């Protein structure tokens, strides 16, 4: 089985080789027979109705850019009339009465939503093992059951498992790039503020960004064209003109200056990953790029700062899940305090509770300066580090993750070992920069390896160009999981 890109699907739809109803039915059938547990909810009726409508629109001459294309949304995005759980028991039966801006924009562009993908509860996790709706299997796992990464694990597994051509996810500390790396895909986190956060359930508001996961950088550019843009309902969205992210894809890389931050190649990095990244750098050199060793001196503080800031914001963001107005409420309680305590104890999973506790502590009176205020200072230092590096280089390149996809249960008992998975991705979120993960090879046991690319704020077009040029030169992104070969 070979991959099929959005671009190819759109060409088929346009030339009448397939109808949206046929395409949608095909993917719905794949989802129905899949055992990856990549979806929390599937909406066949609404998807087919939308596909039928898309075919009618096409017949009527519509030129919507993504008309009739089936996609899936991470279950963190509210969709009117659709169950939206955020991977949590506390929202198990919550039906959203409104639709997220990102989803609306993609629908307006003509996409068909097949369903909602599985995820770590409230986007907290790096393995999708924190979902109330069960573990997700990485299609590359083959004989051993491996994690797809997280928190957008369902979104990545669905694309890698070819249950959908592309899906949306979110990236707060690596939640789109790490699953993309583990599943051999392209994950692109835009600059903070590129996509509206309205209707996207908040984990850490100053870090969260919507992001696509696709087979190719070109597909990511096509989706981003319809996902991004200023939204007056999100005061943190950037007020700039929309741009065509496919614009620079085919610009050659002659003269590109690549920086290799030494902090991304230190202790803890798997040797094979280091080797594949080195191979990728050689590809870039062959394409006319020059390479220089650089340093992000404060990057080592990123993980600590992140695990203060993100839980602090989460502790406040998740206060609304109190059993009063919607969502889960405990059955037995004698008074208000007990209702709160039991609802939240029973409704939230372990990792979510752990982060609420950390965040509550970090913000509490007498500790604020030592934790939250200091973490914000570190954040500025890291941001400054990036700024000064981008005076010298055009793009920073390194591994996306220190290891390949690990087996289910292997990190579950050690939160810190789990957190270390995001050590290369987190600094990017703290600085609000765009970054991507693309596949750059396989490990000796046949698992995908991700290459991380980072560009300056709002330089998504450059980022996508650097990714696309690599994919023109190599074919790692076309590999499919062995489990699919059997099928």
């Amino acid at each position, binding site marked *: 089985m070979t991959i099929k890109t959005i671009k190819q699907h759109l060409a088929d739809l346009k030339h009448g080789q397939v109808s949206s109803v046929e395409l949608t039915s095909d993917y719905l059938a794949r989802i129905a027979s899949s055992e990856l547990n990549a979806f929390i909810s599937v909406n066949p009726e609404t998807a087919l109705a939308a596909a039928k409508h898309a075919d009618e629109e096409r017949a009527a001459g519509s030129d919507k850019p993504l008309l009739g294309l089936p996609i899936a949304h991470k279950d963190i*995005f*509210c969709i009117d009339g659709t169950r*939206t759980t*955020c991977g949590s028991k506390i*929202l198990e039966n*919550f039906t*959203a*009465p*409104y639709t*997220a801006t990102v989803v609306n924009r993609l629908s307006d562009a003509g996409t068909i939503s097949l369903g909602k993908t599985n995820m770590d509860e409230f986007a907290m996790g790096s393995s999708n093992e924190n979902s109330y709706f069960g573990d997700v299997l990485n299609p590359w796992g083959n004989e051993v059951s491996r994690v797809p990464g997280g928190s957008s694990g369902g979104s990545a597994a669905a694309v890698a498992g070819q249950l959908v051509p592309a899906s949306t996810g979110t990236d707060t500390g690596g939640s789109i790039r790490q699953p993309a790396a583990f599943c051999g895909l392209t994950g692109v986190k835009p600059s903070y503020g590129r996509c509206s*956060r*309205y*209707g*996207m*359930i*908040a984990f*850490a*508001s*100053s870090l969260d960004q919507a992001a696509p996961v696709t087979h190719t950088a070109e597909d990511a550019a096509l989706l981003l064209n319809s996902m991004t843009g200023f939204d*007056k*309902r*999100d*005061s*943190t969205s950037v007020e700039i003109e929309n741009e065509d992210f496919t614009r620079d894809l085919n610009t050659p890389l002659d003269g590109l200056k690549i920086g290799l931050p030494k902090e991304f190649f230190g202790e803890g990095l798997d040797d094979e990953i280091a080797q594949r990244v080195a191979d990728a750098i050689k590809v870039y050199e062959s394409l006319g790029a020059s390479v220089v060793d650089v340093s992000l001196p404060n990057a080592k503080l990123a993980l600590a700062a992140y695990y203060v800031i993100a839980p*602090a*914001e989460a*502790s*406040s963001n*998740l*206060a*609304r*899940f*109190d059993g*009063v*107005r*919607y969502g889960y409420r405990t059955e037995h309680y004698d008074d*208000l305090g007990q209702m*709160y305590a039991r609802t939240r104890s029973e409704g939230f999973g372990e990792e979510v509770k752990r982060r609420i506790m950390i965040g*509550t502590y970090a*913000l*509490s*009176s007498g500790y*604020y300066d030592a934790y*939250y205020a200091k973490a914000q200072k570190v954040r500025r230092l890291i941001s400054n580090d990036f700024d000064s590096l981008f005076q010298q280089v055009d793009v920073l390149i390194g591994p996306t993750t220190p290891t390949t996809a690990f087996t289910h249960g292997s990190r579950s008992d050690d939160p810190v070992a789990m957190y270390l998975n995001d050590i290369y991705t987190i600094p990017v979120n703290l600085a609000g920069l765009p970054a991507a993960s693309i596949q750059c090879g396989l490990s000796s046991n046949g698992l995908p390896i991700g290459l991380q690319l980072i560009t300056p704020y709002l330089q998504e077009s450059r980022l996508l160009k650097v990714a696309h040029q690599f994919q023109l030169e190599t074919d790692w992104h076309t590999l499919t999981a062995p489990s699919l070969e059997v099928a």
Partner: protein
Amino acid sequence: MFSWDKHWEVVIGLEVHAQLQTQSKIFSGSSIAYGAEPNTQTSAVDIALPGVLPVMNHEAVRLAVRFGLAVDAHINRTNVFARKNYFYPDLPKGYQISQMALPIVGAGTLDIETEDGTKQIGITRAHLEEDAGKSLHEDFQNETGIDLNRAGTPLLEIVSEPDMRSPSEAVAYLRKLHALVRYIEICDGNMQEGSFRCDANVSVRPRGQQELGTRTELKNINSFRFVERAIEYEIERQIDILEDGGEIVQETRLYDADNHETRSMRSKEEAHDYRYFPDPDLPPMVLEDSFIEEIRARLPELPEAKRSRFETDYDLNASDAELLTSERETADYFERVAAASDSDNKTIANWMTGELFANLNKSELSIEESPIRSAQLAELLDRLADDTLSGKTAKQVFAALWNQEGSVDEIIDSKGLKQITDTGAIETIVDEVIANCPDQVQQFKDGNDKVIGFLVGQVMQKSQGKANPQIANQLLKEKMK
């Protein structure tokens, strides 16, 4: 005057929550109109659905700046909004968006009139925040209803310095502030509906002591009368404790108006740790100088300016000018009467501060609710000026106007109150009185001028109050020469 005056000094600071008169909520487009059916003015943002985000209402910012300019305060150019975290069923997000480190309005001042003259009260700060919803306990058995119509209503919390030294000063400050927010049209001041709410921080210390005593915070004091009574009660309570050798516990106390007492609500130990931090959903808001100057240029006439204008333009004394400008509506009423009437300004002032205010107070009405409109008062005073009415009959017409018995002229006609200014008619009555009161006439002729008053009174009585007293006076004197 209270017994504690000699030994104890009272220190009071007030925190006022003024609901800003915007069309919509501070972070959503929902209406803030009072009195709608529960939960009918609630959007996805107001009920804190997952994924929603706040968007600043710029009108609320404008009104807050207007207040800052009116109290001559520093306006902070960079505004940061913070989350105040606590759980309560009528607080949908589990946090209130407020301002902590950088409030929109910095230090300012407000002058109040006291027995010892004008006193300046410091305003520490005023910040923007959102209101919570309401918990409804009455209509539900063993359950609580939540109405989120009020959640997200824009509030300006105005914090004073602890500059007030008596309950009456506290009330004077509160009244002044109340008048001001209405003057500048940022708040309707309706205390019953909770548009203007007050908490008081109260402490006492031995006279001469520098450091402040331990304070308590009084809540639920939502009328001028309750503010005064609650503070009085609390002062007595604190002094009793201190004089018995006890210590004041820093706590929040609730005023119970029915039993006239304050009750402990929560102590300092039980106080919430609000875990304030900058709201990541709202980037710092920077105010341009041009924005502020535009608001300054449109600032309405402030009470102080209006008072001094009333003294100079209308030639009123300080006391009348103060009374007539204490509320914008009162001042507007006066100016409408003055514009419409030929009567002199002093007479208008006297009738307003006398007859009109007395009747309004008795009926507990505001001047806007007065049954006598400014045009009617102007007409009445014109009839007084042109001698159609005497002072006495004018009061009768005023009473009839108050009872909505008709127009000024209709009432004069129907009651036959037209003053007799015809000298011939009055002369007949004067002759009659002189004939009937020989003793008093003799006394007058013997040089007792004062007896003329009695004789004029007789004329008025016989004419049923309709004779012009000046003419009667004149005729009497002439005839008794």
